[in-house]
């Protein structure tokens, strides 16, 4: 029987710049699959991942108008995962970083948290990891 742990993952840095977001998604999926609780703390430009402005689908490719493919946005993917996680995934967004970058239209499924509560949440977790840089 899995010993249920709380995994704290801080994700920092802009989407599209590296594959850190992809790595985060894979770690989240694997941690939840193994029966652990996951707390994500989105910092810096990672607060952009969960903006309502992204809507659910990316714009089309334009050059392949016949293509019948829907490309999901990160906010849609994260929303879906939170809803299907039965409470095992909690996604926090740093309030300071959100305000500093104008990412104020956060999806309803995430929790905007006071910036310094990050240390508390990290200390409460069994395992913590910071992914990315400012």
């Amino acid at each position, binding site marked *: 029987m899995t010993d249920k742990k709380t995994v704290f993952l801080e994700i920092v840095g802009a989407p599209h710049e590296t594959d850190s977001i*992809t790595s985060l*998604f894979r770690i989240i999926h694997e941690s*939840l699959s193994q029966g652990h609780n996951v707390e994500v703390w989105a910092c810096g430009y990672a607060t952009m991942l969960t903006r309502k402005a992204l809507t659910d689908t*990316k714009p089309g490719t334009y*050059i392949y108008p016949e293509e019948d493919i*829907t490309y999901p946005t990160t906010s849609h*993917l994260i929303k879906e*995962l939170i809803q*299907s996680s039965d409470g095992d995934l909690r996604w926090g967004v740093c309030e300071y970083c959100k305000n500093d970058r104008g990412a104020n239209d956060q999806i309803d499924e995430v929790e905007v948290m006071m910036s310094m509560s990050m240390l508390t949440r990290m200390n409460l977790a069994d395992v913590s990891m910071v992914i990315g840089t400012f």
Partner: protein
Amino acid sequence: MGRARRSQVSSLIIVERAFRGTVESQYSHAPWMSEMVKAMGGNTSLVLKSHCVLYALNKQQDVSIDFGNYKINTLANYNKAISSVLARGIPVYAKLDDCLSRGIAINDLINGVKAINTLALAKLIDDHDKAWFW
């Protein structure tokens, strides 16, 4: 899209930072951008450097990522992307020394991709009006 605006200016797209934003970007990578430029009436060529030479490997497989109950199967397939670029009449070059240092033989490249050395790259830059280095 509106009517394509014809341009006589030629651009060389040189890309060397590879595999960024797999989940965020999906299809919106440099090869796609080169097709967009061509579709808008631009005259462009694509050079793959450093890790980006891996984009030009033949026999690449489709990849997907499981994220909770969601399977993200709209990730970039660079084999198809490069083949599509070539099919649109855009020349594609791969830096030879970057291929060789990664154990990639010329025969491992997608048919139509040309391997070039540094001197040839310098000439390509000279032969184009603009060089975009991504």
